[in-house]
């Protein structure tokens, strides 16, 4: 499991973005993510196409619902996630 308390290295706040800008920005951010880093995506809906892309590209993710109904999606490389146990 990922540590829920760790501060993410990069944040994409997509709450005011129209599809597919949240996906475009997230994929750009993943390219810039340092080794072992985490990316937090804040988005008003579950990004179904992104989940497939993440799994296919070797990332893992954890989804949490915010009080305002938006979702926090914490993403990191799958092999790094195993290290956290």
């Amino acid at each position, binding site marked *: 499991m990922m540590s829920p308390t760790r501060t993410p290295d990069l944040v994409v706040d997509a*709450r*005011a973005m*129209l*599809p*597919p*800008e949240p*996906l*475009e920005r997230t*994929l750009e951010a993943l390219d810039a993510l340092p080794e072992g880093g985490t990316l937090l995506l804040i988005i*008003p*809906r*579950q990004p*179904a*196409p992104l989940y*497939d*892309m993440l799994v*296919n590209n070797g990332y893992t993710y954890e989804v949490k*619902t915010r009080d305002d*109904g938006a979702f926090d999606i914490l993403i990191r490389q799958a092999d790094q996630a195993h290290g956290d146990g």
Partner: protein
Amino acid sequence: MATAELSFEQAPPLSVPLRFFYGAPIFLFLAALLMMFRFDQVFVSRWTPQTLALTHLVTAGFMLQVMLGALFQLMPVAAGANLWRPHWLVWPVHVGSFAGALGLAWGFYASHGAWLAAGGVLLTLAVLVFMLASALALLRTPARGPTVSALRLAVLWLGVTVAIGLSMAAARGGYLGLEPLQWSQLHVAGGLVGWGGLLVAATAYLVVPMFQLTPAYPAWFSRAFAWALAGALVLGAAATHPLAWIPAVVMVMGFAVMTLDRQRRRRRAKTDLTLSLWRQAMSCVLLGGGLSLLVLLGENDPRISVAAGVLVLYGAFVSLIAGMLYKIVPFILWLFLQPRLSQVPPMTRMLNQPLMRWHWWVHSGGLVMAGLAAFWSPMGLGAGVAIGAASLLLLAQLMRVGRHAQRALATLSQPS
């Protein structure tokens, strides 16, 4: 959860919805030609052969094409309802509905019974194939929720509309001893409210929050609306009095108020063309619904009926559909390209923004002129010119998106 999940991995091959979307503007262009050359006939009454041809070019042509294409995409993605072999199924549905709508419109225009019957039968067969496949998929899907219920009811009303339409066409062609006008109210209400209205609602629950960044429709509203509207339509059909249709009209107007309210509360201040077209559509539902109420209450002036028809068909449905095509076509092409390319062109760049603004003005001008033509028919010439230009601008934009995708894919096949 605020909004339903979408399963994009279930999407059909791209060519399935796109062939409907690219073919649809042709019907709008033909409708515009009819306005240009027969404006003295099409705007004087609901019942002239030219008006009936025009109405069916827009409804059985433009609207049905986009609605079928959208359902091929939407049912598996949004409702988990996988159609059986969509790449085979699409052939009879597309060819039959396209040719059937053309035959039907020509049959009305030329008052030719055989064309009416042939067009009606082709269209019915196409819809029947689609209905059977979609009913099976919608009954078997494990998904639940307001979109699935509204889709099921919408497809049911499509069947009712087409069955009555075929009987009316057969009667008009002299093949069936039935008074066609007796069934027209149910045909119109079933098509515009039952099929069109419920399909718009089913889609709106997903796309309005997603593409316009609005709050979701209230749960009580999206749960109850489709069933209440279907009940109001049954009431209208069962009672013989025109006043019995009033609850259905009022409910559709309520949906427009709810949608405008959602859009007023959106999280993003910036407007785009899709939002403007949706707002125009919902405003036209309110205006057209108001005029329809006058007609149901006994207003006999044919100009009021024609103006209501213009507002509902062109102002509401065509506006909304154009707005949706500007989102759906780039979006499904973007989703197709994303896993295949490292550098996908941004979706907004696939469309030409200045030309889209031109489209908005030409489309809105066409709407105003078509509305005025109900009261002064020569205005119909201007409406025809504007709507013809709007249909070509829409088609040009959709083709531009397709070309962008093709160019992006071509970079893949080039030797490095």
